[in-house]
């Protein structure tokens, strides 16, 4: 099923794009699985997603843990820890 992936901040800069549409296999069940799967798409993906401690995610506009399931999700955003305010 098509899934929109959004990238922000240095994740976006390193990958070189702010979004892409992907269709991961059924074995990709969680946010952590997705990050692992995306990191195999290109050397830039691998670099941007290498440091899992510095990555955060939102599933359909709600912050989510690495263990969060992605079944049924339409959009997943990957980004560094937020620095607003």
């Amino acid at each position, binding site marked *: 099923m098509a899934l929109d992936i959004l990238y*922000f901040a240095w994740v*976006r800069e390193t990958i070189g794009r702010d979004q892409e549409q992907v269709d991961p296999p059924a074995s990709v069940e969680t946010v952590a699985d997705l990050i692992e799967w995306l990191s195999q798409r290109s050397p830039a993906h691998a670099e941007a997603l290498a440091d899992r401690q510095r990555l955060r995610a939102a599933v359909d*506009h709600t912050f989510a843990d690495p263990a969060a399931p992605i079944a049924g999700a339409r959009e997943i955003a990957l980004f560094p*820890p*937020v620095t607003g*305010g």
Partner: protein
Amino acid sequence: MIAIQIQREAFDPGALQADLEALGGGGVATFTGVVRGEGGLSELVLEHHAAMTTKAVRAIADRAAARWTLLGLTIVHRHGSLVPGDRIVFVGVAARHRGPALEACAFLIDWLKTHAPFWKRETFADGTTRWVEPRAEDDAAAARWGG
């Protein structure tokens, strides 16, 4: 009365505060964040997850409204390109007494720092750029309010 604005444009804290005063409470507490020009900073760009930001900020506001008895709550957060001296964020809270107003104001800015999808990129006079790293103090400040 919760008012949230996520915008590129500048804002006027005095006008926002006057709206909160008009709600009839005894006190209005505000916090305004401003771009510091330290270390030769020439520009601060705030990137955000446009489709998600208002929802995330609303969730923070709802949490404050559930925890304290408030008359009004205003959050304005800018995105885009800012320069030193520009205002970034405004949080204002009106309540019957000062305690809830002051506490909710501190909670809101602590949580905006750690629970709203904004990222800051600094550009310096020599042309170098740097993404702002989260500060451990910010996580600690947010954590003191509980989950």
